[in-house]
Structure formats: C-alpha cells, structure tokens
C-alpha cells in the first residue's frame, strides 16, 4: 500500500534525526574511551555495556520485570486517584480552596525524604515503591485534568444550557471531552516521572529492581551493569511515553490541531 509506505517513510523521517544524534554520540563515546584508554570501572564503552546487557540478560530481565510492575501499578493508581481528585476539585470550589493547596504542597516535599519513611511504614516490599510512583506521577494528571475540565468554552456551556442540558449532562458531554487532550498530556508527563519514582524507591530500600541493582553494582565497580540498567530504564520511560502518545493519536484524531 502506497499510503502505508508513505506513513512509514514519514515516521522514519521523524525519527532519523534523533536516532542519528544518539548513534553519533555513542560512537564518539566509544572512540574517546578507546583513544584515552579510560579504565572500564570508570567509564565503560557502549560496546561493553551492550555486551553486559546480552550476557546478563537473565539477571537484568528479572529486575526489569520487578521495576516494570511497580511502574505500571503505581501509574494506574496515580491515574485513577488523579482523575477522581481532579473531578472533585473541578466540581466544588470549596474542595478546590481547601484541598488544592495540599495537592501542590505534596509536590514540594522531596520524594527522597519521604521514601525512607515509607520504608519504615510499609516495609521494603513492592507497596512502598508503588506508593512513591503514584505520589510522583499523580500530580501532572491532577493539574492537567483540573485545567481540562475548566477549559470548556463558556459559549458552548451556554449553548448546552439553551438546549436544556443539566449540569451532569454538561459535564459528561462537554467538559469530559474537552478535558481529554489535557488528560493525555498529563499522562505523558506522568509516564516518564513514574520510572524515576520507581528507581528512587528501589534505591532507598528494596529487594530487587533496576534501582536496587544499580545501587548494589556501583560500589563493586560493576560500572557496565549500572550503565546497562540506565539504558534499560530510559528505554522503559520512552516506551511508556510512546505508548501514551499512540493512545493520544487515536483518541484525539478528530480534535482540531491533533495531527501531531
């Protein structure tokens, strides 16, 4: 199909600059490490990191799966709590005045300070990591959905009212669809910070996961393994981001200016 071919070509054109830049950087890195004979424990070349990923695939895979679970559960928790909270905040002025300042305040407390406390409260199991992921990623969702629900055009609301719409109908048929693009933007930000949250949680205290693996490997000068974990983590973040991006493309295909 020529249509699909062109779409693929366009996709490739969109990704080519980023892929080229990344590849170039890796090549410079590789060359620099070899030319200046940097010791492996200080900075391994990319080829060594790749080698590490292949030879310890089983170990890395096990810990990746632990992290992925924490990220996904925390992300889903953040999405449901975030959306419910945003609806409440957009629905009631009183709730907004009393609750919203604390939602914002919750983000001014560094997660790294809360993490050890959580460890004390719920133990080193999965729960503490899920909570940290949720804490860090619910914020962009709440803020965006609140803005989105308020973004409904006031003339549109007036039009609905002249057609006899109830408050609930205006919410369902106008405010919710108006908030959808905002929600998906928030989701994209949340997807990326969710991965960071999981690593922080594992770093502070865990029995597994890529963050834990990095923390264990660094003092043993297994620098290649640390880098392997970093590579996998960023790939994870990018995948989640792209997944939400694809969802966005489908959900917003009829919205104006959605041909991003």
């Amino acid at each position, binding site marked *: 199909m020529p249509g699909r071919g062109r779409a693929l070509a366009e996709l490739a054109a969109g990704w080519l600059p980023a892929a080229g830049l990344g590849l170039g950087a890796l090549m410079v890195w590789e060359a620099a490490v070899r030319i200046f004979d940097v010791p492996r424990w200080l900075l391994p070349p990319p080829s060594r990191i790749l080698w590490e990923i292949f030879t310890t695939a089983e170990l890395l895979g096990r810990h990746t799966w632990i992290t992925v679970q924490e990220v996904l559960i925390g992300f889903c928790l953040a999405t449901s709590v975030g959306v419910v909270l945003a609806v409440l905040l957009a629905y009631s002025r009183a709730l907004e005045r009393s609750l919203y300042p604390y939602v914002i305040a919750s983000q001014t407390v560094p997660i790294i300070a809360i993490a050890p406390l959580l460890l004390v409260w719920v133990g080193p199991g999965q729960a503490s990591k899920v909570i940290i992921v949720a804490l860090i990623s619910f914020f962009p969702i709440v803020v965006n959905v609140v803005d989105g629900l308020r973004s409904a*055009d006031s*003339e549109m609301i007036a*039009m609905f009212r002249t*057609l*006899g719409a109830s408050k609930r109908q205006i919410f369902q048929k106008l405010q919710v*669809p108006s908030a959808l693009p905002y929600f998906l933007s928030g989701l994209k930000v949340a997807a990326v910070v969710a991965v960071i949250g999981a690593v922080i949680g594992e770093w502070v205290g865990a029995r597994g996961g890529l963050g834990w693996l990095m923390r264990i490997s660094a003092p043993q000068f297994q620098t290649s393994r640390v880098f392997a974990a970093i590579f996998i983590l960023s790939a994870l973040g990018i995948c989640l981001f792209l997944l939400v991006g694809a969802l966005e493309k489908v959900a917003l295909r*009829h*919205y104006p200016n959605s041909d991003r």
Partner: protein
Amino acid sequence: MPAQGSSSPATAEPASYRWGGARISQPALRASQAAGPTASGFTRLELNGVTKTYPARGRRPALDVISDASLLVSSGEFVSLIGPSGCGKSTLLNIVSGLEEPTSGVVALDGDPRAPRLGLVAHMHQRDLLLPWRTVLGNAVLGLELRHVAATEARARALALIARFGLDGFEDAYPAHLSGGMRQRVALLRTMLPQQDLIVLDEPFGALDAITRSGLQEWLGDVLETDRRTTLLVTHDVDEALLMSDRIYVMSKRPGSTVQSLQVPLARPRTREALSDPRVIDLRRQLMGLLAGKPGVVEA
C-alpha cells in the same frame, strides 16, 4: 447549492411532526410543557422596558448595556433586530433565551412573565459552536439527546431533514472538514430539531462570505416558511433584515434601546428581487438613517 427549492420533499411533512415525542427531563421544562403552547402552536414574545447592567467587577466599572428595550414578536412572526455592534443585541438574546435575567423590565412568553425560558427557547449563537469530536449527525442530534430522545429516533429525525439542510452525504463528516456555510447549517439544524416554538438567531450568517450568505438567507426563508416558528433574528446586515422579516426593530448605540419598529410590506418568503422593490428601497433608506443616529432623516 444551499438554496433548496420549496418543492423539496420535506415540505409535505405532517403538522403533527412538530410535537413528535421529545421527552423532557427537567421539572421546569415539564411544567411549562404542561402549561402548553398556545392553540396556534406558536409562542408570542414580549419585552417591556428591559434593562441590563453588568455590575462592577474588580477594576472594571459597572456597564449599562441595555437601557430600555421593548419589543413584541407575535406568534409565527419573523422579527429582526438591527443595531450597531456592541449595542447589546447578543445580551438581549441571552435574556430572551433565559441564559441571563434582565436587571429590570419584563420578558413574557405568551403573556406570562414568569414562564421559564431556559431550554425552551431555541437559541443559535453567533459562532457555530459545533463539538469537534462529533460528526455532523452527532452534532445535529445533540438537543434531542439532551432531552433523552432515543438515539434511533433522534437519528431518524435528523436524517429526515439532512437533505433539506444541504448536508446529505456529510452525515459522518467531522466539523473540521466542513465549509463555514455548512457548519452554520449544522448549527441551525441542531437548533431547530428540538422543535421549540420560539427561535432566536444571533447573526447566524455574520461570519460568512457574501455569496454564501445570500444563498443561506433565501434558503432559511424557505425553511421557516414550511416549518413556521416565531423568530427573532439579530443582524447588522440591513438587506438581511429586509429580505427575511415581517418587522424590523432598530436599536440605538450602547446602552441599547429599541428606537423604532418598521413593517416590511411584502409577503414572505422573498427572493432577492424584493430588495429592488421601491417600498423596500425606501425602508432601507429609513433604516440607514436610524442606524446612523439621525432620526430627523426619517420620513413617514
């Protein structure tokens, strides 16, 4: 293309169709339906000494928008309201459709100043306000959907009119792919489908090019001929008012007040040739004089 001949099949629609099965959810709506329309089925609108002042807010001082508007639209009559921009025409329509209440004065439907208006007066805004995530058909049925009309019936009622609104073949198109004239016709279809007796139109063709506009004016005249409603049209286009109305009210600059009402002595619907009728030419001259704020110029 937009002007459909009055010989279109929809002309033969049975009169009972007007009252076809709209279930209305809110108690206010139900109460006023129970109170019932007039025997003729058309609603008479009367405004008496209406004023509107927006109170001061923050640094913005209070604003008198309407100082004294009085007008009458009889059952089945087409009345236009013409005035300079910013004189409070849209505000007046918001008051008529119940979106806002007047600061003082009386708005009465069928002589009842306490009759509920919100949800019972069809109001077409200046902008088409189509929902971009809904198709033409989805937008058209919105008013029926909000009244809990069954989806299949709502679709059927919209499809029955879609050709007459020049939208056949575009049922499943999204607003982003429509021309300005088509979008306006979708908005009008959405406004008219719930079959309310009184319809207020706020510069419905104001944003369109002259050719599209004149086509739609004649077409709307035909549509309202076969499907009569009590209509109040706001416009700043003198020819539009002359072409479509039984009567024309002129409004002064802000704070607006209705200064004069002029009768158009020709039968409706009219074609553009009516605009070269000597009586209409004379009327246009009077209207222009009134709009320029020179009451001395007016003869008769």
